[in-house]
């Protein structure tokens, strides 16, 4: 019971983090940089929370669970929103110095949670959630890298 409640609490936290996420989509062609930073920041927080939660599950010897998968789904949606924001900027005519690298990141980013979910689900032990923890950490690191590649992407 206790585990279930903490699962739900954690999902609620993730969902709350997710709420301000979709807003920047509407700023498609504008250059409102203050709004622009909301999605990457949310992804960093969500990724770290997911990693912490997943590692807790590993430490407590739990397998993959539905709440964990739901949290991975939230992370996936956030990453897709971020890809959309960057594609909108590129469509608006802006170009970073390392365009090829950025496009590589845009392609790879959405696959991280999906690949981790499948690979983690194939595992019937505590090491399934550990794979999810990696995906959460990678999502957070990717946002920092994105900022390094293209500083207009604020974190």
């Amino acid at each position: 019971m206790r585990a279930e409640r903490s699962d739900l609490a954690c999902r609620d936290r993730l969902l709350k983090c997710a709420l301000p996420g979709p807003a920047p989509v509407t700023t498609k062609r504008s250059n409102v940089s203050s709004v622009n930073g909301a999605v990457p920041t949310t992804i960093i927080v969500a990724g770290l929370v997911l990693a912490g939660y997943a590692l807790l599950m590993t430490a407590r010897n739990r397998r993959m669970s539905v709440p964990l998968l739901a949290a991975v789904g939230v992370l996936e949606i956030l990453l897709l929103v971020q890809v959309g924001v960057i594609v909108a900027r590129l469509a608006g005519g802006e170009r970073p110095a390392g365009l090829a690298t950025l496009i590589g990141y845009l392609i790879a980013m959405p696959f991280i949670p999906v690949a981790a979910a499948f690979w983690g689900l194939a595992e019937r032990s505590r090491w399934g959630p550990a794979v999810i923890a990696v995906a959460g950490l990678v999502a957070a690191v990717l946002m920092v890298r994105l900022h390094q590649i293209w500083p207009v992407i604020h974190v």
Partner: protein
Amino acid sequence: MSEPAAPPERTASQPDSTRTGPGRLLIAIYALFALAASARAGVQIATKFGHAPVAYLLSAFAGVVYILATVTLAVGSPAARRIAVLSCSVELAGVLAVGTWSLADPATFPDATVWSGYGSGYGFVPLVLPVFGLLWLRRWTRRPRTRRTTTMSTEDAGEGGRRRNP
């Protein structure tokens, strides 16, 4: 949403292949580095090879080693495990050699590789990963599972496999 949480039962069963248990996590991280190193090297060699040829070629080499380790760990047959031990060893030697080289002669590395500064650009994961890889593989050459690996154990139970490890 039928089940709110996984059954909180303990999972005491032993992993039965190099791709299960802790190996699952190892392969995930190896796959990530395989992608990161090879994609990065690909972009750098394609767009600005002349800028830092040594660094970019070393990144490409690292990418190949990571791909090899990922695939062989995931396959897990005795032959694959031997190749995995080899690639993890090359990786460990590479990160130590390139790490030292990059500190001793920074001029050769105007741009970083995965292994520069002992993998400091990647949170030293490149330094730690081969150590865990070799420990994981060592476990398999020492104690071959009877279940599902009976045909492999005769080939692999000897001392030969163990001595390969540094």
